[in-house]
């Protein structure tokens, strides 16, 4: 039943039979090989039939990717990733801040930057608990992503960290926040973490939507040296330099809705020709 010929068997001159279980396993292996996968992935948080029918139960990362996929389905298969990302930008309810992908598309139409990409990958945040519960890190929030299992030969061409910000008013009315994203260089037990500033953005407290930070260089480093991957830190300050708790500033964390969880997305390009191994 795996391979279904829609034409009648008489018409095509073949007689069809159901595959035996070992044949089915062999067939699965061959299809995985065509897809360039060494084995069948076993995701910890895979999809249940209920989730498939109710996209609202999906996490933000698969939802974003599904949005990309749906945007291009129905279109010509020749559509490249430049179009995908453009559509994703349109669908993502982003803030007024220019995103890496958006600004590239807006300014350089013929840029080979994204059209060269052949794979897009989203990564879920692996930090289980927001560290802002700890008094020392009250104004920071940490994020970690596993980039150790990138298919061989794929190089990062662009990467973004995406985090959702809710509207906050009250004491912050008419205020702006300076959002800074840092790469964690080293972690120490008894002293401050070594961090490196990657990007900053200024938003209104009343702003609501996805914020996007360019982390291309950092992602490249993490792919090359997974041991140097200590994650990212996010810090929020008021205009006059006062630290603000990220949750109080409206940033959605682990305890927030599924579809507003922070994640990162990366665009890849195959850097070498893949040769299938002899089986």
């Amino acid at each position: 039943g795996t391979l279904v010929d829609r034409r009648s068997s008489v018409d095509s001159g073949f007689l069809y039979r159901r595959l035996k279980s070992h044949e089915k396993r062999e067939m699965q292996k061959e299809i995985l090989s065509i897809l360039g996968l060494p084995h069948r992935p076993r995701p910890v948080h895979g999809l249940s039939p209920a989730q498939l029918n109710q996209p609202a139960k999906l996490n933000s990362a698969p939802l974003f990717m599904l949005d990309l996929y749906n945007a291009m389905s129905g279109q010509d298969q020749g559509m490249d990733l430049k179009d995908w990302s453009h559509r994703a930008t349109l669908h993502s309810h982003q803030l007024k801040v220019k995103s890496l992908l958006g600004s590239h598309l807006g300014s350089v139409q013929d840029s080979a930057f994204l059209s060269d990409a052949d794979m897009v990958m989203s990564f879920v945040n692996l930090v289980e608990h927001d560290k802002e519960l700890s008094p020392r890190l009250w104004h920071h929030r940490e994020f970690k992503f596993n980039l150790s299992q990138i298919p061989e030969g794929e190089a990062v061409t662009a990467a973004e960290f995406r985090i959702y910000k809710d509207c906050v008013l009250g004491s912050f009315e008419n205020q702006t926040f300076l959002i800074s994203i840092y790469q964690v260089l080293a972690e120490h037990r008894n002293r401050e973490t070594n961090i490196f500033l990657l990007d900053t953005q200024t938003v209104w407290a009343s702003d609501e939507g996805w914020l996007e930070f360019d982390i291309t260089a950092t992602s490249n480093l993490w792919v090359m040296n997974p041991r140097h991957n200590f994650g990212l830190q996010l810090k929020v300050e008021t205009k006059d330099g006062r630290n603000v708790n990220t949750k109080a500033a409206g940033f959605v964390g682990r305890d927030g809705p599924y579809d507003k969880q922070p994640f990162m997305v990366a665009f890849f390009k195959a850097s070498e020709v893949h040769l299938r191994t002899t089986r």
Partner: protein
Amino acid sequence: SATSKRKNQNRNRYTQAQDVTRVSSITDYNSSELKTACRKHELYVSFQDLGWQDWIIAPKGYAANYCGGECSFPLNAHMNATNHAIVQTLVHLMNPDYVPKPCCAPTKLNAISVLYFDDNSNVILKKYRNMVVRACGCH
């Protein structure tokens, strides 16, 4: 030789628009052969039937298709036959036990995109080239 000469004359006379007629006239004198002639067959690979719906988010499957059938004279009955397929057929006719007929194989292939989870529940959207057979021909 005489047959091929006549065929060539005919070929010159016909315009592109009359291609269909030409194919059907060939069919008349050798209809059994056309039944087994090289052509595209539909074949759907279902990711659902493979039991992969827990890690492949989309699509549910894809129409991979395949090429099947024989490549023999007259080759113009087979769409997209290469020039060398004629030589291959000639040599096959002269020495059928040692030289095979031209192969019925894809001439146009399309890409598909697959959206799936990896072991770490990260999501991958990858474009796979040459996955769907759009047209077949004799090589």
